């Protein structure tokens, strides 16, 4: 239990995927113009990352058993792509309301490097099954936290005046930089 708590704290704050490890920047910049779309994307990512961590753990064990761990990248990305497709089809049939809410974001997640990143980091850290799923889930929570915070900042920026050259993405990047500065403050927690 203690271990899980430590993983959660480090995944959400200390090693936040977006602001510290630079994983999943594309959706972070792309889908953060409004808070509700950001939240939708975040939830979809949590969901897929939890599932993908579980699935890739099994695949990794299989690869080790067959002694072909060099196939890791290919196997993982295929598993993730298939998984996203399956989740999409399942949600469409079983939970249409959730499907319409997440629909647009699901296909985008295949190329979200946070998902593959979590899978690779899980094997590097040597987490067991439960730790892997916890790490995946809480990394997703960290992603959601970052993207929602960032969306609130960007919503306000709409009304601000800024130099012409900085309009749009540059301004967003500079504010992301300030947000990252805040998250640096959490790095002191890592000793624990």
């Amino acid at each position, binding site marked *: 239990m203690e271990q899980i708590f430590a993983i959660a704290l480090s995944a959400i704050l200390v090693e936040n995927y977006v602001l510290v490890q*630079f994983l999943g920047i594309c959706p972070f910049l792309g889908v953060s113009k409004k808070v509700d779309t950001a939240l939708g994307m975040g939830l979809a990512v949590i969901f897929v990352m939890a599932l993908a961590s579980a699935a890739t753990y099994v695949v990794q064990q299989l690869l080790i058993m067959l002694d072909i761990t060099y196939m890791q990248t*290919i196997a993982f990305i295929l598993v993730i792509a298939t998984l996203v497709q399956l989740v999409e089809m399942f949600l469409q049939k079983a939970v249409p309301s959730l499907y319409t809410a997440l629909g647009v974001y699901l296909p985008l997640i295949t190329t979200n490097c946070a998902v*593959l990143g979590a899978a690779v980091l899980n094997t*590097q850290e040597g987490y067991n099954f439960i730790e892997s799923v916890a790490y995946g889930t809480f990394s997703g929570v960290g992603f959601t936290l970052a993207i929602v915070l960032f969306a609130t900042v960007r919503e306000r920026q709409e009304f601000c005046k800024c130099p012409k050259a*900085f309009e749009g*993405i540059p301004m967003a990047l500079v504010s992301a930089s300030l947000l990252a500065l805040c998250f640096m403050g959490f790095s002191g927690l890592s000793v624990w």
Partner: protein
Amino acid sequence: MSEPNNAPRLGKTLLNGIIFENPVLVLLLGTCPTLATSISAINGIGMGIATTVVLTGSNVVISLIRKLIPSKIRIASYIVVIATFTTIVQLLLQAYVPSLYDSLGIFIPLIVVNCIVLGRAEAFASKNGPLLSLVDGIGMGIGFTMTLAIMGLIREFLGAGTFFGIQVYPNEFAAMLMTMPCGGFLTLGCIIAAVQFIRSRGKKGAK
């Protein structure tokens, strides 16, 4: 489909990737590796070259087999081709440049999900012949590498006081912040702002 193989078209494709449609600065693709690996110039260039190899290789292969792939499963097929090249690069780096392999770490397998590679496969290699795709891959790769190198140089110089690893001014005066994550965002933001500024001035001049 006849293939316009003349030299001007090739040159235009090459320049397109480097300047007019620079993947990072104009198309805003592949920001994750850009921010994460540009801590120093050497790292940035290493990452750029690794990505260029994957990009060029997958572009050529995809353009060769583009007529054999049914359009419904094309994305999955592209991903398999890209993942194969990524694995090759990963194993090569691990064998011959272990220091770079260690410092790039997780971002080598993540070349698979680099939007630049998949984006070029979908937008260019699936519609053009192998030669043009090769040139497009090289052009985009150079554009990406150049951006990473510039970012790496700036961050290294301001953050650690070094130039390609050589100490230029004492470490104590350096702003450590620039090698941290927030420095990455800040540098990229400023570079893109500079590019936008130059482009808007260019337009004014044309008028």
